[in-house]
């Protein structure tokens, strides 16, 4: 695991080394304008012409100190930018992932149980449509329909009224996750405003990503229902509900867990499009901007961060695996 992280950091560093030193200076310089003749002295000052290993270890040392450099797009140190953007993304991921998994598992189970019946065909059509629609297209369509045509759901992270509440000195931002903060402050108006703004992007993500989970769940559930142990359960006199919920589903969940973990991590990275369309100021939007403006520090940090997310999610997936499937337990 640690090896994976070292590998990620090496790759990130290698990418950084491809960029000319003149641009890389930007990582270290905060705010003030630099004149051209200053650049050379700054390059020397931050040791950007030192041998690569020396630079790498210096960079790693800075990371451990919590110093990731200065982001141009956030016009603040990277870590400050992260604190600002990350909660927005995390909120969306936190709301959509459980929904994606629940909807996917639920529809998949229904499809498998009523195999080749109309309801199964319906879920399959849902899956094919959901899986083949591009994110940006569906996002734009949802926006056009619900915001442009009907005016029901808004884009963005928060309304103007919400902003007033947010910057009110009496309102404390504990976690910077809007809905949780609203509950902690007991401010229901803010809470509903945040939920209101979350609806469209969540629908967008759920429609697209639950299709995959659903397909997987359906096929692995059908596979599980054809196994011999289902026959044993039937011969015991178990009713249908027990057979589906106790005997088949747990076996069927094993492959779904793997994909769910990867999907959760993928969602964090795949936010670029969704957040850009719905104008939510999250990591995805930040990354998109950083990439277009060559904000090296922000890009490096985010790639490293996604690497960490993947590693942690994989660890969690392994733990859940062991809990569901006794064959994987070590003891």
């Amino acid at each position, binding site marked *: 695991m640690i090896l994976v992280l070292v590998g990620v950091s090496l790759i990130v560093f290698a990418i950084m080394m491809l960029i000319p030193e003149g641009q890389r200076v930007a990582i270290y310089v905060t705010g003030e304008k630099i004149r051209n003749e200053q650049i050379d002295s700054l390059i020397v000052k931050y040791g950007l012409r030192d041998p690569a290993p020396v630079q790498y270890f210096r960079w790693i040392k800075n990371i451990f100190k919590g110093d990731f450099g200065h982001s141009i797009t956030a016009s603040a140190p990277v870590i400050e930018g992260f604190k600002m953007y990350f909660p927005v993304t995390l909120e969306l991921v936190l709301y959509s992932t459980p929904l994606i998994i629940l909807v996917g598992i639920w529809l998949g189970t229904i499809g498998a149980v009523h195999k080749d019946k109309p309801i199964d065909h319906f879920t399959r059509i849902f899956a094919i449509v959901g899986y083949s629609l591009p994110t940006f297209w569906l996002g734009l369509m949802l926006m056009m329909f619900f915001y442009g045509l009907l005016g029901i759901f808004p884009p963005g992270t928060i309304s103007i009224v919400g902003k007033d509440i947010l910057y009110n000195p009496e309102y404390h931002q504990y976690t910077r996750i809007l809905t949780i903060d609203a509950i902690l402050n007991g401010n229901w108006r803010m809470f509903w405003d945040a939920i209101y703004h979350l609806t469209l992007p969540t629908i967008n993500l759920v429609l697209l990503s639950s299709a995959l989970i659903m397909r997987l769940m359906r096929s692995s559930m059908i596979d599980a229902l054809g196994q011999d*142990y289902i026959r*044993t359960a039937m011969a015991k006199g*178990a009713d249908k509900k027990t057979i589906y919920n106790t005997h088949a589903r747990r076996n069927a969940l094993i492959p779904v867990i793997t994909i769910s973990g990867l999907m959760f991590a993928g969602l964090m990275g795949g936010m670029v499009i969704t957040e850009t369309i719905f104008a939510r100021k999250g990591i995805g939007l930040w990354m998109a901007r950083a990439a277009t403006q060559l904000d090296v520090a922000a890009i490096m940090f985010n790639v490293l961060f996604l690497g960490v997310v993947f590693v942690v999610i994989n660890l969690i997936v392994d733990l859940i695996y062991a809990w569901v499937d*006794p064959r994987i337990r070590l003891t």
Partner: protein
Amino acid sequence: MEKLVEAEELRTNFYTFEGVVKALNGVSLVVNNGETYGLVGESGCGKSVSVRSMMRIVQAPGKIEEGKVVLFFNEKDRNKGIDILKRSEAYMQSIRGNDISMIFQEAGTALNPVLSIGFQVGESFLLHRRGEMIKLAVKTLDKKIDENSNSLFRMWRKFHKRLLQNETDDLERYKTEIVKIDSDLYRTEGKTDSKSLEKHKRLLVNRERLNKQGLKVRLQLKTPIIRRYVRRINAAVREKVIELLTDLGVPNPGNIVDRYPHELSGGMQQRIVISIALACNPTLLIADEPTSNLDVTIQAQILDLIRQLKKTQISSVLFITHDLGVVAEICDRVTVMYAGDTCETASVKDLFKEPMHPYTKGLLKSVPKGEIGEKLQTIPGTVPNLITPPSGCRFHPRCPDVMEICKSQKPEMLMMKDGHSVACHLYRKK
């Protein structure tokens, strides 16, 4: 001899992509009370499918097309019997595992890999003997109430006792309702006038709908914290499972109950499968090739176990195998099957002494006798494809004594002498 189960003209098809597999072509067999009945044939001849049809657990894409499976279990329906193919699914669930249960081949795949042994064996108790289990739980709870003087614990335990009592009351109510519907069903069954038919249909629907638990019990089972009283039932079940495993000669049962199937050896897995089937003392035990895929020594142990259980616990065994040696060892009466047809039924002695059907003769000739350098005889040809089975007698393309009539007409079961019948045109009275 009293009949226990009778299958009449069972026809089961499998609707596969390649076509309709006509797996059973009118199989009839009778298992009498107190006998070990063998079902023999090569693989794919429909042995397993016929017993699965008898228990109504044919998995998709299979479907039981027609026929009758009549049970003569209770005193009440000794004369008439119950046709279980016409009964509701709920009724079947109350019979499976309770009156008829089944041992499967390949215990490794017949056990659920993600559930503990204790759960899988105990499930039978929970499904059919929940009342008794609750009684056991109440008993241990009573003891604890007496012992402990701490008033808080006392209150908690008394509360649990109350909840358990709720469940018992509910089960009683359910039982009386079920008995009523079943007796009504029994009365309307077989009548052909439209009024009775309608009533029968309605009763079937009611039987299916009958909720196993009332609202109160469902609530107490679903509410967190309150539902913790279920652990007391589970503890009682665990005790029962350990008892059962000890009876079956499983070493170290207290440890085994917390294990998972993959941690056990093949023989041990087969014992667990047997214990699942025996949990509720069934009247009929169906053993579907319980000894295939096991070493010879383990095979002998399992056969011994079944023979012993036959003496002590269960009245009849329906034993499926392709091994004629096992048949000779364990069975009283045998039916030989070929490609979804029953060929010959006889007592074991008769079958081995004077086989009548050409297929049985061929089968007996192809058993190795254990002589060195012996050349095995085989039956020429191969098992037919059951999507397009041969016309008439399904054995005719391979039969040494084939006649013209065999190709067009399916032979009927002919009673040759007491207890020995054969389905072959050779023995037709001219």
